């Protein structure tokens, strides 16, 4: 009789493990009938689910019944952990990625130069977004007519993308070697070596009022009273 009990308990444990795995991996709540086929002969799915729900009741994750189906859900009292939608991490948009990569390779670079490389005008929000993300910064002003603002990347950029220095960005041959650039490129195509220093000789420091507000993002360089 004792042996029988022990065996019984072992079978039940095994069935409970199977239910745990099934419920955990499923994208949808599951009905007992969905799971019965995975359990041993003569197993009582309802009773097993009730036992599982009892065990998980004090845990951070509970097994809950939704209609006649079951699912794991975060315990109600830990609901504060659940994310409010606006905080979702989102993939960077394609234009933003392109702009960021051009700034990384061509820095120090101006908005006009970015547009020249991309072949389309840059949405003013894209640069603002990249600066807000902490990856792009205003470096200074180019010593050319209009004194456009020059952009570069930040330490946070290196950190996020796992680069020790800007020199770690792969060059032309390596982009080809990694299959990112096709082999059929004109010999005129060059990839610049990003400038890693404080200010290049054609750059002036930023003006004192450059850093407050996004005025520098305005299209018309004529607005600048020099």
């Amino acid at each position: 009789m004792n042996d029988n009990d022990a065996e019984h308990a072992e079978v039940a444990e095994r069935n409970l493990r199977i239910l745990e795995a099934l419920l955990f991996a499923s994208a949808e709540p599951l009905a007992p009938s969905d799971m019965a086929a995975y359990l041993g002969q003569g197993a009582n799915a309802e009773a097993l689910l009730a036992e599982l729900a009892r065990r998980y009741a004090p845990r951070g994750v509970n097994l809950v019944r939704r209609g006649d189906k079951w699912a794991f859900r975060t315990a109600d009292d830990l609901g504060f952990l659940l994310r409010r939608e606006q905080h979702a991490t989102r993939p960077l948009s394609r234009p933003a990625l392109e702009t960021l990569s051009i700034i990384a390779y061509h820095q120090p670079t101006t908005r006009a130069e970015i547009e020249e490389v991309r072949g389309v005008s840059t949405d003013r929000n894209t640069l603002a977004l990249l600066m807000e993300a902490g990856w792009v910064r205003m470096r200074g002003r180019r010593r050319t007519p209009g004194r456009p603002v020059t952009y570069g990347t930040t330490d946070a950029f290196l950190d996020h993308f796992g680069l020790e220095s800007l020199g770690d960005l792969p060059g032309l041959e390596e982009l080809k070697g990694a299959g990112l650039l096709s082999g059929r490129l004109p010999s005129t195509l060059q990839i610049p070596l990003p400038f890693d220093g404080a200010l290049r000789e054609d750059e002036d420091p930023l003006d004192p009022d450059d850093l407050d507000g996004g005025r520098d993002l305005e299209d018309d360089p004529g607005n600048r009273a020099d």
Partner: protein
Amino acid sequence: MYVDVDGYEGPLDLLLDLARRQKVDLAAISILALAEQYLAFIETVREQRIEVAADYLVMAAWLAYLKSRLMVPQAPNDDEPSGEMLAAMLQFRLKRLEAMRRAASQLMNRPRLDFQVYARGAPEPIEIARNNIWEASLFDLLKAYATNRERGISTDYSPLLRTVWSLQDARDILQRLIGDSFDWVPMDSYLAQYLTTPGERATVRASSFASSLELVRQGKIDLRQTEVFGPLFMRRSKSDPR
């Protein structure tokens, strides 16, 4: 250029397969026998086909050299690597490739995510304090840059059509040029008329060189180079019965 030789992935893959057919541990393998099998195999393939990828021919030339080093005792003042050393290096490379293949299959047999092991099927959005709201990987970034730069040039760029000298062509041309000349002549002089277009120089030289190795192996020509990176001289072999 990559020519498939009976589904092999390069000369090392072919050698490894031949080695396995010796049905002994790689440590106990006869490198000399292996070299002979390889050379015989390439010869058979060449009889059936017009062309074998240069990789395979370079290996064949190297194995022919290895064979000669193994069969001739090393001279005392010979500072070239000994045949045994070359054989050990080849054996090492074969063992390493086989080890990596075994490792790959062991990896694939592990309980893999989404094959035998599963993550939460219905993840619940949670707020994790991260430094970044935006997600992007280095790969995304590089891909965006490369795509963008390529897009920029596609408008005013028509792909350059590169002439590739086939090994067969190179061989025919070389044999025609060398003809019956028993004088040493630099390879580049023979090829002068073909080397005028900068874009073609690399392929002309590479194919001619690979073909010349093959011609040497067949005893049709002799090859001589007196210094590193110096000009390569060639002439008709005196032993060529032609």
